[in-house]
């Protein structure tokens, strides 16, 4: 049983767990951070999408032993702090468009959207319909259309805030 130290949502944490336990379970079952959801455990549904050093990833498919002590993990709970606000503009866009139905997929959808927009903006371009077609996150309630609208809106606000 190894001890693992890293940063989650701005706080340094240390947990004891075998190195092979996937980070999702360390977050959810051991640290009680339940924003990232389980939907498959095999990097397919993307309900667990979170950020590692600002990049989107799926903690269900990363053993905790691979997380470095300098790594910064951000889950949906920590997203507002990354912009120093009560809500990240993408979350606000989600509320404005009334995107969520059951809401189970939405933390993952928002984390995926933020990374996608950042990637486009860092490449100096706007998010396109083709970018949106590439998003793999499942929404079993079928909120896909409003997700697309909200990403466009959130992207605008992210650009404006920059």
């Amino acid at each position, binding site marked *: *049983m190894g001890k693992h130290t890293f940063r989650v949502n701005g706080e340094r944490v240390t947990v004891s*767990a*075998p190195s*092979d336990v*996937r980070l999702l*379970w360390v977050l*959810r*079952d*051991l640290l009680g951070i339940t924003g990232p*959801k*389980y*939907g*498959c*455990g*095999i*990097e*397919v*549904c993307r*309900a667990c999408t979170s950020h*590692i050093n600002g*990049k*989107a*990833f*799926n903690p*269900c*498919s*990363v053993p905790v032993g*691979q997380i470095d002590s300098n790594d910064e993990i951000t*889950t*949906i709970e920590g997203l507002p702090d990354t912009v120093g606000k009560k*809500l990240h503009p993408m*979350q606000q866009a*989600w*509320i404005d468009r*009334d*995107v*969520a*139905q*059951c*809401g189970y997929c*939405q933390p993952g959808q*928002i984390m995926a959207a933020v*990374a996608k927009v950042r990637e486009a903006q860092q490449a100096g371009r706007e998010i396109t*319909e083709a970018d949106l*077609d*590439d*998003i*793999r*996150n*499942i*929404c*079993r*309630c*079928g*909120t*896909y*259309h*409003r*997700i*697309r609208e909200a990403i466009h809106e959130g992207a605008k606000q992210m650009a404006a805030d920059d």
Partner: protein
Amino acid sequence: MTDVSRRRFLAYVIAAPTVVAAARWADAGTSTTAAPQPIPSAPGLSDTYDLNDLLTDSTKTTANMITVRVNKDGTASFALPRIETGQGITTSTAMLIAEEMDLPVSKVHVTLADARPELKQNQFTGGSNTSISTYTPIRTAAAAAKQQMKGEAARRLGVSADHLTTRDGVVHAPDGRTIPYADLAESAAATSTRQIVVALKDPSEFRIIGRPHGRVDAHAAVTGRKTFTMDMHVRGALPTMICRPPTIKGTVKRVNNRTTVTNMPGVTDVAVISGGVAVRARTFGQCIDAVRALKVTWNPGTVDKDSDKTFLAELKANELPFGAPSPDPLADVVDESFTFYWKSNSALEPNVAIADVRKTRATIWSPLQAPIFTQQEVADLLGFSVDQVKVHVLPGGGAFGRRMFSDVALEAAEASKKFGKPVKLMWHRTDEFRAGRMHPMATSHVRATYSGGSVLSFEQRHTSMATDWSMGFGEPLSASMASAPPAGLGDQGYSQGVWNLTINVPYNFGQVDHAIYEIRKYDDMHTGSVRNLYSADAAVARELVVDKLAKAMKVDRYRFRQEFLKDDDLASGVLHAAAKAARWGRHMPAGTAQGIAFHSEYHGKIAAVAEIDCRPSTVNRKKRQAVTGPRVTKLVIAVDVGLPINPRGLEAQMMGGAMDAIGQILTESMHLRDGYFLEGSWDDYYYTRQWNVPRDIKVIVMPPSSDAPGGAGEFGVAVTKAAVACALAQATHETPAYFPINHFDPLPFHPFPTEPPIPQSPRDGLKHAR
């Protein structure tokens, strides 16, 4: 004062520390009728006059009631005997209460009620029935709470209650004096429980009902704070999973390495339960490891010799013959048969339940559509009485019919009992597909005859693998009818009932006759009806034949429907609205086409126009581990549900139903082979993904056509499926004989092995970070 006619209902005020008002929920035995009885309006009867100061036995009269409670801070609380699974009923319920109480929606707190066996069928969420059955009772209780506070305000202000108005949680006197509800909550509380008469607002007075409102849980959902069962912390309830059999309904013969697995890191317990071998561990990750490490010898399942092929032959062989009235021998005939393959009804949140079983009591937490039924089943399993079992209903991460059943709650209870410890039992995604419930495979055969300008007959024979209706309408009485129906009807009795209640042919087609027959037994496989029951398949068959008739009779498909629709302005209205917004009949390039469909159900009418692109450049798009194929490029849905309580929520429901519809026609099905389903993940089961989503979707919510709401949850599925199927047939000049259309394409995935029953989580996730 308004001069509108307000309907009056019986309500109750309950003796309590703050204002609590109640209304009868619904009569046992009727699942759809609103419970409170209207009082004939008597001239001069004041809105706030107490008709009977009847002192009543509170327990007797309030047992079957729902109550609205006013809190000391002036907010209102209500425990809804239904489950919120994304359909938006906590929002629409808060709107109903806010409307009648004249409170802001944000000051109404709606929670989900625990199982309340005294409510009988009326704690069952399904069949899109919530708005229909709760509309009057909830408003009645809310109106009674307001009336009680107005009465106290009138006394304090020395003004007749008739002259007081209420706004945003404040009572206003004509002279400008005000009293907020917070100041009345305690002083207006009833000291004895009694019956009163309340008047409900006339729809012309509505300020909240009928206006778009955002979801009350939107903030919680986007911040990750919305608590699902998976997120709940119950002391000692450690992660638990089940190692399941390699074929459907197989059973454990022998566990060969129990000690080894019990000694694995994190694992606390291993035991055989009815669904397989349960393992409990410190994390779900360690449960996955343990499930995969188990060496189990299995007994065969119930359908080990079956595959899609065997079922298809059996369905065809059991189709009921067409009816007697033999059509005019000179008439022309359209005769088409369609096959609909298995559909998974799994939600994104997998099956999950927390169970804490002690010596003399048990507590369950789970998203349940039929909690009273579950409470009874858990009690039976444990040999307890119903009142020894507490069932808490949590919001579900989707439902789609899956949560009508108690499967996971029973497994959790059994595991908790065996381990003597609390458990949080979750299904793996692969369990969801392979051991989870399916919408049964079915065929639908339609024969229609026509002559000159008339359709003379229209017959439909639907044949399906048996659907499990054993949850009845959510409580044990009607459920026992489904599993042991009277008069030797077998399961047919129940399925016939559901079929006849939901299926109709909305056109003037002469002799109309439709019937269903189900093969095998309801519990041979894990079945259940996915969103929109039988209609989702039956309407596709019907509308495709309608198109065939229109073509044969050389009438435009839209005009044909308008001409043959049963005389009904509302039906014609939605069809017209959808066609107009979609610019029906506009020029479409070769390989693309429009399709139109109409459907009526749930006291409502709905029409859809879909545009589809079947050109090679679209069909052959490449995406990793995906099915692309034809794409629906545009979708217009016009819906009339009578009175839309929350048009924004309704819009969302229609879009959600449309996503099911698109997948079910074009991409998603299960393949049964030698007793198990090949699919094991969302990358095998091609439910609609972003690359299949139309970029242009419009939902037209028709203005209120009635003063009562209809159902909405499932309404968007059948009509959109039919419109997409019709568009596809038009674009490709070929009517598909089976759905989804890719069912016989080479499998785009490698099926996971069946032993071990679930796949290991990858370890290379960091490589894909971006």
